């Protein structure tokens, strides 16, 4: 069972993530991403929107596949900044590791 944390997007504010809710899931980021990997990074942005905090923490290593190349941010029609969202999620996970 997945618990939903509606406050997750707000929690990410202090890790520099404040654009995830702008995303309308068009998939441009996943189409242009050089990883060509399972709807990445769109999937991660969607997890934030849904408050699926546990999904992120269960498989956090996926975030480090991101090359931080910025192509997704460059092409996002909603200026949702997916590349920086992924970087912010990495910060959130590192903080979680250090505190636990």
């Amino acid at each position: 069972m997945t618990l939903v944390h509606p406050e997750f997007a707000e929690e990410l504010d202090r890790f520099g993530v404040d654009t995830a809710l702008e995303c309308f899931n068009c998939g441009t980021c996943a189409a242009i991403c050089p990883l060509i990997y399972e709807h990445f990074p769109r999937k991660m942005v969607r997890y934030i929107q849904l408050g699926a905090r546990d999904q992120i923490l269960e498989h956090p290593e996926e975030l480090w596949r991101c090359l931080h190349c910025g192509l997704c941010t460059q092409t996002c029609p909603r200026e949702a900044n997916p590349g920086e969202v992924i970087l912010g999620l990495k910060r959130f996970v590192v903080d979680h590791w250090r505190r636990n």
Partner: protein
Amino acid sequence: MYSPRDIIEVIAGNVRKTRSPFAIPRSMVNTWWKKETLRSEGDALLFTGLMYQFIPYIEKSTSYLEKYEDTKLASLVRFAKYQPKRLSGIGLALMTPGEKKKQANEILRNIAKVLTRSDVDFYYKPKLDFYSGILLYDLGDQESFVEHAKFVSGKLKRAGVKKIITVDPHTTYALKVLYPKYTGESFEVKAYFELVNFSSSNGGGQVTLHDPCFYGRYLELSDAPRRALEKLGVKCVEVRNSGTFTNCCGGPAESISPSLSKEVMERRVEELRTTGAPIVAMCPICLGNLRKSGAEVEDLSAVIARCA
């Protein structure tokens, strides 16, 4: 894929204790300036950020990571954080071939030659040349990055540095964009190729530039190397994905997943090869990673220095 947590803890521990991601003493890494006649005072500080000097060490350490990725031995990386930092750093330095170190130093000598030929009033102080901490930022270890960045920016500020000339995109981004944001210290930062100010008839020929993501997109500096090459009579043959739409070389993934890094790199090299012109990089990470394909890749500084 390696555990990001293990890799981050090793790198963060090294930077905390030694100010270097590889824990190699600076006196062993930064030797390029020793045979140069460089001024120690001037208008702008040449700040290498040690990234080009790291190329041979990155190559050596990632060759081990490549070998053990997804094997049972991969999990042993977590114990690396318990090793004495400087001792393991010196060990890596001694295992790295001297010839590779010379090649990396040559790039920096070329950059100094280009700046001198351009009549740039610059100086160099090895004691002020530090690693910027950018890998910690990219890996998401914000706390360690900010701590290190404050240490470096503090040293520069106390030395009265106002203008900085950088040589690679990662250090340029760190000093130009991240340091003001996270340390409160600002400097006037320029990449060395923005200062090329001479024409030459020694140039000629053509090249295909591989724009690094940070120069191409984050800093939007792709026009500057093209302008410099145009003055030297070198023609740039473009691939479709260049400038702000450049494609990644795969290098940033090399510490976490060498196989993923290779996959992305091979796609990029295939694209760059379509022009038939020699491939030219302008970032130490791109240069090292693209060369792993076996393709001949030259650094931009060598092309410009040949005309100086």
